[in-house]
């Protein structure tokens, strides 16, 4: 059964050091408050999988020294520009990057979702990504029907995945709407931790209208309320991204010193104040 926890810190405590942690993309229910809690708890040696693109969450975790390795199709702040802590850490060799491409990340999770050791994916061949990935395998058409070469992508099973949603119910069912990559992440991960704007009493499975956008509690290990928990990113139909704050991060995080000041203000002091 899904546990409903009292605090973000309780939730953050469920992400062990060294875990393979899956993060949703910037536009999709990103649990920023939980990311800040993870940084506060001093998480270490995380292996991050961005599904498929990382943003501010990945950049902050990397900058805060929580990350050993990142597998990604890209890490970017989007309109704001490059992800500065990611770029710096890669250039200085402080984080290992495993380059991927968007559909390969989806495919690797779909393989785990389906309980198979791999799935094939078209394209890719001739990309240096394939050359660097000795876990991927290029094979001749295994059906022997003249379909040519194809890449087999091994399954990836995240130890933990984290998302922020507008709404859950007391049975642990969580609204994901049309962000169905979150369903695949949930199906594939060993543990799913969820923060939500609010928990309602009525079951999301009580009507077909809400069931259509619900992830069953079956896949939800624990959840906690975190109002405004995606800020400064947006949450569709709930709040817009705080563009000024994002630009401010993009600017300050260009230097190690600026990033430290940003963390101090928004992760440590900021949250301690908010918690009082």
């Amino acid at each position, binding site marked *: 059964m899904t546990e409903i926890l009292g605090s973000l810190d309780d939730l953050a405590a469920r992400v062990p050091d060294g875990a393979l942690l899956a993060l949703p*993309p910037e*536009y*999709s229910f990103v649990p920023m408050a939980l990311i800040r809690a993870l940084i506060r708890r001093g998480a270490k040696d995380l292996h991050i999988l961005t*599904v*498929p*693109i990382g943003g501010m969450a990945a950049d902050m975790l990397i900058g805060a020294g929580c990350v050993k390795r990142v597998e*990604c*199709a*890209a*890490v*970017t702040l*989007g*309109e704001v520009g*490059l*992800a500065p802590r*990611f*770029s710096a850490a*890669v*250039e200085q*060799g402080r984080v290992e*990057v495993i*380059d*991927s*491409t*968007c*559909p*390969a990340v*989806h495919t690797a999770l*779909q393989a785990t979702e389906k309980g198979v050791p791999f799935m094939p*994916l*078209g*394209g*890719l*061949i*001739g*990309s*240096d*990504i*394939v050359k*660097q990935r000795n876990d991927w395998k290029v094979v*001749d058409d295994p059906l022997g029907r003249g*379909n*040519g*070469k*194809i890449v087999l992508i091994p399954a990836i099973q995240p130890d933990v995945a984290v998302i922020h949603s507008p709404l859950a119910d007391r049975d642990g069912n969580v609204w994901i709407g*049309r*962000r*169905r*990559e*979150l*369903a*695949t992440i949930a199906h594939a991960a060993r543990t799913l931790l969820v923060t939500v704007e609010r928990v309602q009493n009525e079951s999301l499975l009580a009507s077909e209208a809400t069931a259509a956008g619900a992830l069953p509690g079956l896949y939800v290990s624990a959840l906690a309320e975190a109002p405004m928990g995606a800020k400064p990113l947006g949450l569709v139909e709930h709040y817009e991204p705080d563009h000024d704050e994002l630009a401010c991060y993009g600017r300050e995080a260009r230097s190690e010193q600026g990033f430290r000041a940003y963390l101090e203000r928004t992760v440590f002091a900021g949250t301690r104040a908010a918690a009082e």
Partner: protein
Amino acid sequence: MSGDADYSDAEFLITTVARLIETPDVRHVAVGAASPIPGAAALLVRKLKGGTPRVSLIHGKATNPFTDGGREIFDCAGQGRVDVFFLGGVQIDGEANINLVGTGDYPKVDKRFPGSFGSAYMYFVVPKVILFRPEHTRRVFVPKVDFVSAPGLSAPDVRRPGGPKYLVTELCVMSFDAGRGRFRLESVTPGRTVEEVRDNTGFEIEIPDRVAKTLAPEPERLALLRSSVGREIADVYPGFARDMLGVAA
């Protein structure tokens, strides 16, 4: 590039890209994140043609038709349902290889960029990929990319229904011929020269004896960009619409 012309650089690029999109076989144009000029060009074509092709801006609201999560645009393209897509590159070489990862000796890069996104897949499956990279310098157009995010050419035993068809820069429009494996100069931006193109390109290109000028934006299209199409763009790219087209969200 516009000088004293009555249109902006952005408007020029939008109408240039629009002309490359609008062939009769095009039913569906998809546009990735952070691509306001290609997005605007696609919306302009849709308006001109009365609703066809479909235009999917993956981070748009009204213009984002996808409901199967982040993988749908890739599945959709793999099904052959996306006819036009856009890619860029930190570096692009003469075989139309693109690099979105970084410069230097991978994995020890000198400068790290975001990553390959979906390019290593979309480049293979979308029939008309338009490379869009305004900056036309030898820093971008290199003899050989440092990292191949996605290759321009494939061996015959690799299924590849798609690939690069055009390259649009601030200086020119080129086409790419997969059979001959090289770019061909199609037209040059008004006020710029073939020599400038050659001097700023780090690889060989085919240059015909006579090279046309890229057409200036058609007045009717400019008017649409500054009104109804501009408002659609502002829905997805408010900053761009405000700064480049003078249209408020």
